[in-house]
């Protein structure tokens, strides 16, 4: 196998079968992260009843089950390193698609290609049938693709409400002149934006903390706030990058429920996740990457029985299943 030449920095943690005990430190690292959260904090309850359906952002809405986004033979090279190798898969409207694979498999890189952070070396990402091309990151967001980050990247010195408002603002056009003279456009956008932001915060159970600075929120709330911020841009496709990192089983269960609720409110979800149990429990379909290649695709049940996946995932799977 050519894997030892893989020079990605995350390589050290790559879970080769031989290194299965090495997965233990990874879990403790996660636990360590979690310890940062105030232990006294109660787990925030979400309010699934709040209507947070995406607003009309001027892109054609495809009907349930049709292709929303298509990754077509995407290859990405950094110098001599092949990060993605002719990866192809698609996401249907209204489904929850899991993107899994061991560390360094190229999951986040794949995300980055989809959201315009990297341009593919060859191949294309098509959204609603049209290639994303060289669109800038913010333009892709405006088309309806939003994401969260593996390592939380909130606007730390802004309040929770303001964080969400930035997301809502993605489809606003208030400029200096409108703001300066408080023109009707500004007032309309501010009040509507505020309403939507508060809905999202309420949905996430964060309405009581709207005025807290993002950096002062407990860890779990920060994760939820990131999702709220991404939802605020009214995406057709919501990409979640390891949202369960650092969560305990109870929190993970709540997260699964949350992801399902989000889908039920009319969003399509792409989920990158390490935790097999979570992925198996919530997704409709799963795509498995390893070393930049797609090695399997199918329903959770199919993936579970796929020998290639088992080979790739053995260590972690056992660890998590126990």
């Amino acid at each position: 196998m050519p894997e030892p030449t893989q020079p990605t920095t995350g390589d050290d943690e790559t879970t080769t079968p031989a290194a299965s005990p090495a997965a233990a430190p990874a879990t403790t690292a996660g636990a360590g992260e979690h310890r940062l959260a105030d232990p006294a904090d109660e787990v925030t309850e979400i309010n699934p009843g709040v209507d947070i359906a995406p607003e009309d952002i001027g892109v054609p809405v495809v009907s349930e089950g049709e292709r929303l986004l298509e990754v077509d033979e995407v290859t990405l090279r950094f110098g001599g390193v092949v990060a993605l190798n002719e990866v192809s898969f698609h996401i249907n409207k209204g489904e929850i698609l899991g993107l899994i694979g061991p560390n360094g498999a190229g999951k986040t890189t794949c995300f980055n290609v989809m959201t315009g952070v990297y341009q593919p070396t060859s191949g294309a990402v098509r959204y609603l049938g049209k290639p994303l091309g060289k669109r800038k990151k913010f333009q892709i967001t405006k088309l309806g693709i939003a994401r969260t980050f593996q390592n939380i990247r909130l606007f730390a010195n802004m309040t929770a409400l303001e964080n969400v408002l930035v997301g809502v603002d993605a489809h606003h056009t208030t400029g200096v002149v409108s703001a300066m003279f408080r023109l009707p456009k500004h007032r309309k956008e501010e009040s509507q934006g505020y309403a939507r932001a508060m809905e999202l915060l309420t949905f996430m159970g964060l309405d009581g903390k709207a005025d807290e600075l993002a950096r002062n929120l407990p860890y779990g709330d920060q994760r939820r706030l990131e999702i709220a911020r991404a939802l605020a841009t009214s995406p057709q496709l919501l990409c979640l990058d390891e949202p369960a990192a650092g969560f305990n089983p109870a929190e993970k269960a709540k997260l699964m429920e949350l992801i399902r609720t989000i889908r039920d409110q009319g969003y399509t979800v792409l989920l990158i996740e390490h935790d097999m149990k979570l992925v198996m429990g919530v997704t409709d379909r799963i795509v498995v990457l390893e070393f930049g290649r797609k090695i399997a695709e199918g329903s959770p049940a199919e993936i579970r029985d796929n020998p290639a996946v088992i080979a790739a995932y053995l260590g972690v799977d056992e660890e998590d299943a126990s």
Partner: protein
Amino acid sequence: MSTPTSAPAARKPATRGFKERVDHLPRSVKIVLWVLFALFLFLLPLLNIPFITTEGSDFGGVLFTVATYVLVALGLNIVVGYAGLLDLGYVGFYAVGAYTVGVLTSEHAHLSWVVVVPIAIVVAMVSGVILGAPTLRVRGDYLAIVTLGFGEIVRLTLVNSQWLGGAQGISDIPKPPSAELFEVPSLDWSSGAPVVDLDTTSTFLKFGINDFVPYYWLALGIIGLVLLFDILVKSSRVGRAWEATREDEDAAELMGVPTFRFKLLAFALGAAIGGLSGALFATKAGFISPDSFQLLLSILFLAAVVVGGAGNRWGVIVGAIVVGYFPERFRDFADFRVLVFGLALMLLAIFRPQGLLPPRRTVRAKRADDRQAVLEEGEASA
């Protein structure tokens, strides 16, 4: 171990109490207080309050200088404080504003002041866009050196271009149109107690050569307008976009913020306000030359913003007052002014890195951090 942490905690409710008390005053009382405060500011140069009034230089003139610093600091705060762009060449825009006024009212044309000031603002704004468009794409650290270079290029161009008056500069810049409405007397304290002195007066809005008070009033009025502008824009989508960009540019971009466009906007607005202050300076001075736009001034401007607390408009005003006023008030230090100023900057950086009046956020964040620290300490000792 708990005593040092509990002491500041005990102090905090007091300050919060004061703020709350002010906040809870009836609206009418608050308005009256604001009006009184504004009135006090307008009359300041005529009150001749002992100790505050500068001995070595005319107080009205000094206050005007301070007012231009405040204006500049408000503009630079948009760039540095809100958008997080380090600009070391802000004096360039100040010069562009001043020279636009000089060129259009004296050197090559004789347009009216009222027409020229808006032109100066626009020209400065355009120069901001021209500088920003190529450079705002480079990394933040480099922006500092590029803007530093810009400031020097502007000055050297002024020195070496005869069309702009060269080193001789531009003289005979006309005054703004005057409207002599009424006279305001000043106070005289020489007998120990304040006495109204009807001999020394300032005429309301008579822009003469020998009375700087009306220029100060003009500057104060403009500061008021700029402040209003600042408050309105900051509390809108634009202000949030700036802050998001400052906090995490990539994340902001991925949340749909066209960060480059907003950085350019901040740069252009900052430049426009810088140009406005320059125009004001040129109007009052009546004479400008490249000597008035040294690189050091850029650094003083930046110091004003950071000393006061970048990101907080009231803080940068305080910073501008410190930077503009203290060297004039303590003229006795004469030769040691710069030395003392340098020492003050260092001490401030070490002991009060958030600035004298940091954004309220930072204060709140710091309080939360302290709380966290107390918690952790408690846990550790438990």
